[in-house]
Structures are given as structure tokens and as C-alpha cells.
């Protein structure tokens, strides 16, 4: 069953075609990557799929719903880790968890995330006083703690130390083992190679290739961009 179904998705910003007829399908229980150079349209694609960006034309279905027509319903059912977003500056880490719990009307197992992402002693500080990596840990926690069936992650390992990077990768794999789906946008080829079941190469807002065999992914990607 397709959890994401995209057909002819287009989005322009003035003269720039950020998304140019994107077509893709993502099935339940897989980690799917979107690889592309800077400005290829990865973040725009993720925003369009998560109801953060209204597209110009095309058909999009996420967990059976249209993210433009039902953005709140889609966001209730998914988790999202945007590339450039921090938790609110003036809340402490634990208040931020409480805030997201209130909005999602779900309890959070803070202890689980404190242990998993090594957040001990950090949740009492205002998030603006945390390091970039610690803020990223909070953002990762909020994307996963309500146990969504589908999680969108955009450059998830940025600013994280190697130990936490491994734990986050384990988190993605656990999600897949539980039948969940991860939609990963990145330009880190080794990450896609390590985790993904399938990868889409994006260039100038278009899917130029779909790859299932992760061997020599770097060469395949570089070839696709020529």
C-alpha cells in the first residue's frame, strides 16, 4: 500500500521551478531517500508533502489525504523534522515537549528520549541556550514521540555527534521494523546508502532516477546529475 503517492507535482517561486512534475510512490515499511544537490528542490518537496507548502498543480496523497486540503489532519498523522527549524527559543526543553504533547494531545515518554538521545540535564534550559546539536535532538524527539506511521526527515544528522548519529539511525531502522515509513531528504550519500531501501535522485525539481540497488550510489548519483 502506498503511504505517499505523488503525481505531476509542480511548484514555482516566481521564475524558478522548484518542483517540476515530480512523480513518486512510497510504500509502507520502507526508508526512502531523496538525494539532490543544493537547490534541487528537496526541502520544497518535503514541505509540499507535509502540508507546509501549497503546490501549483499535481496530485499528492499522504496516508490517503491531500496535504493541501487537509494539512492539519496530515500533520496529526505524520512526524516531521524540517531542515531549518529550531524549537521555540524561550521554552525550556521539557516545556517544549509539553507544548508539542499539548498540541498533539499525546503524552510523551520524556525519559525514553532523554536516555536515547543523551538529553540528561538539558531539558531544564531554555532552548536558545542549548547547542545546535541539542536543539536538533529535541526536534528529532518531537518528530517521533507520538509514534507516527510516517516520518519526514530533512538532513536529520546535522550537528549531531557520531554516537547520537548512530542512535538516530537505529531509531529510523526501528521505525521501519515496526512497519513505519521514513522519507529522508539529504545530500549525504553515505547516509542514504546505509539506510535506504530506495532512493530518488532529484535534479532541478525533477526526479531523474530511481535506484533500488545501493551499491556505488555515489557514482550513480554523480552520473544522474550530469
Amino acid at each position, binding site marked *: 500500500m502506498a503511504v505517499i503517492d505523488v503525481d505531476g507535482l509542480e511548484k514555482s517561486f516566481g521564475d524558478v521551478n522548484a518542483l517540476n512534475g515530480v512523480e513518486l510512490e512510497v510504500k509502507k515499511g520502507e526508508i526512502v531517500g531523496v538525494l539532490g544537490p543544493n537547490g534541487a528542490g528537496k526541502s520544497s518537496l518535503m*514541505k509540499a508533502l507535509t502540508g507546509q507548502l501549497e503546490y501549483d498543480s499535481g496530485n499528492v496523497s499522504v496516508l490517503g489525504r491531500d496535504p493541501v486540503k487537509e494539512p492539519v489532519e496530515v500533520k496529526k498523522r505524520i512526524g516531521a*523534522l524540517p531542515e531549518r527549524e529550531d524549537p521555540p527559543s524561550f521554552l525550556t526543553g521539557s516545556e517544549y515537549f509539553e*507544548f508539542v504533547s499539548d498540541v498533539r494531545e499525546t503524552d510523551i515518554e520524556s525519559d525514553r528520549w532523554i536516555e536515547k538521545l543523551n538529553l540528561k540535564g538539558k531539558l531544564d534550559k531554555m532552548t536558545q541556550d542549548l547547542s545546535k546539536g541539542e536543539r536538533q535532538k529535541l526536534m528529532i524527539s518531537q518528530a517521533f514521540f507520538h509514534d507516527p506511521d510516517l516520518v519526514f526527515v530533512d538532513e536529520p544528522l546535522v550537528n549531531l555527534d557520531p554516537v547520537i548519529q548512530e542512535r538516530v539511525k537505529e531509531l529510523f531502522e526501528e521505525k521501519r521494523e515496526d512497519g513505519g515509513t521514513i522519507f529522508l531528504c539529504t545530500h549525504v550519500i553515505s547516509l542514504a546508502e546505509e539506510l535506504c531501501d530506495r532512493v530518488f535522485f532529484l535534479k532541478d525539481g525533477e526526479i531523474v532516477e530511481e535506484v533500488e540497488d545501493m551499491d556505488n550510489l555515489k557514482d550513480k548519483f554523480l552520473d544522474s546529475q550530469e
Partner: protein
Amino acid sequence: MIRKMIKEEWRRNSRLYRGRSFALFPAVIFLFSLGWNYMVVNFSTLSYPMIGNSLAAIAGLMGVAVGLSGFSGKDAFRNVLGDTNYIVFSSHTLPVSKRKLYLEFFIKDTFFYMFLVIIPLSLGFLIPTGFAILPSLLDAAALFTLGLMSSALVALSSLTLPSLNIVNYGNIDVLDPVADKSVVDIFRSSGGFLKILFSLGVLSFFYWVMVLNFPLASIFLENPLLSFSILIGLINLSIYNWLNKFDSLEPYSYIPLDSLSIAHSKQIAYLSLALPVSFVMVLASTLVYQGHILLSLITAASTTVYGMAVAVRVLGLSPNESLFHADVFLKYILGMGAVTVPLLYMSIVYSERFLFHVLAVCGLGLMAGSFVLLRTQRDELS
């Protein structure tokens, strides 16, 4: 380095306040100061030494405001402008001493805001007084520098304002996550809740000074407390501005909230702050002059609610930026005027026979406000 810092300051402000509007800022300060002082000189009982002292006091307050915003106001700018960094923080990456950078930053701020604010403000004082208060300029310059230096030192010393710990998310319990967060933002951002009291306090103070020292005002203002309660509804826009200063729709884009629910939360936060603050200001005013307290409280509440409806409808969730567009500003003024002008008129010519008229306009204002809010909601949904 100072030249580059001045350029940086200009760009930061012009981006924040949209280029051309910002360039007019000294002219607006001058005209406002000139108009006010023309009235003071011609219609008040204030003596020239007192006028000179008030210039020095305002300059001192400006110094404090500039010093605080220059250093600890970075949080507000970051939330409005996105990630920002300033030359003053270059010592983190470049081989230059912090002490040198801070000294140059301080000199830059002194010159920049002297030209931007203090000089046009002072000219507005000097011209109507025929330059009789010229010696006070020295006091003004000294107090501005002192205010700037002391507040910058406080900001740099990273002292925690008591208000940071008064309000916590979760214990303010206004029933709505975004409303809670917005209130926490105000209490924990630079200046804490004092910035609200400051912005309302300064304008209230001007009004009180006018009522007490302008014989002409006592002729025009038959019921100064009632007039003040209407003014409060207008001034409360500053609370709506602060509630929207630290976020936009973007930070909520990844969680299940739509713009309508965020706007609704901002309204809850606004009412939970603006109504009690308005009541306190009206009650505080009774220490300065007499009036019909209950009627004034009702009027303050209804103009506050009506003001919110107009702000939501016309200014949306970015009031700080929207107000600098002339057409939006005009719509806002006309929208507010529809209720506040009749109320002000009745407060000016007040007698007991107007009691029910005032209540009727308040009721109409509340109904109009509700209608505007419902209409806004409907438009958003469609």
C-alpha cells in the same frame, strides 16, 4: 570597524522596518517632538527648566532602551529576521579582542542613535522654546550615554531578569498551547513583562502629564478617565505586537496547527494580558484624576476587544511589519476610528446623559468586533 558596524546597524533596522519607512524615522521623531513641545510651550503650565529636564529624562530612557536592544534584543531580531549575527560577535571566530569590539559597538550605538533619535528629538524641543533650553542638551547627551552604557553593561553581564522565572509554560494555564507559549515568550524575552508596562506606561504618562499640566485639556476633556480608557484600547496594540514578535507561522508548520487556530491562540493570549493590564492602568489613573470608574473599565474592555478584532483582521499575525504599509496603516486607523472616535467625542462632551450612549457604543463595538472576527474566520476557512 565602526563604519562597518554603522552600516550593519542601518541595514538591520532598514530590513526590520522596511527601508524607506526607516529613513523617515528621524523626521517622524522631529515632527512628533516639535508638535508636542509646541503644545507644551503654548498651552501648558510647564516651565522651561521642566521642559529641559523632560528632554534629559527621555534621552536617558532612550539610552537604556538602545543599550538593551543592542545586546540582548538579539532574540527578537533573530525571530523576526531569521538567524542573524553581528560584527560585535566576531571575536568568536576572528582574532580581535572582545573588549575592543564592545567599545566600538558602544561608540557606534552612541553616534548612530544620537543622529537617529536624540538630535531630531532635541530639535523638536529647541525650536518651540526658542533655544532657551540649550543647556539641557548637555544633560540629555550625558544621560543618553549613561543610560546606554549602564543598560549595555547589565545586558552583557547576562543578569537573569526576575520575570524570566515567574511564568512557566504549563503553570499559566490559559488553556491553549500556543497562547501559553506566546505569553511565556513575552515574559522571557529581553525586558520581560516590563517592556509591556514600559510601552503602556510611557504613553499613559504623557496623557497624565497633559491632563495635569494643560489647562486647555481640562476644558476639552470633560471626563479624562473615560477618554483614557478609550486610549488604552488603542495603546493595547503594542501588546498584540509583542505577542506576534517572537514567532510567525513558520515555526508551527511541522505540527498539526493551522493559521486559524494560531490566530485564535494569539487572541486568547492578548485578552489574558491586555484586559488585566488595561484595568490596572485605568485604576492607576484614578490616582491622577477622577472619573466614572465602572464605565471606564467597561469602555477599556470593549475598546480592547474591538481593537483586537481590527488588529487581527487588518494586521494579521505580522502587525509589526504590516503597520509600515501606508494602506494597511490607513485601514487600521479607519477601523479603530469607527468606534473610538464616537467614544472620544462623548468623553470630551461628557455629561450623565451620555452614560447610556457610551454603553451603547461599547456594545456596538463589541458586536462589530465579534462580527469582524467571525468574518475573518470565515474568509480564512474559505
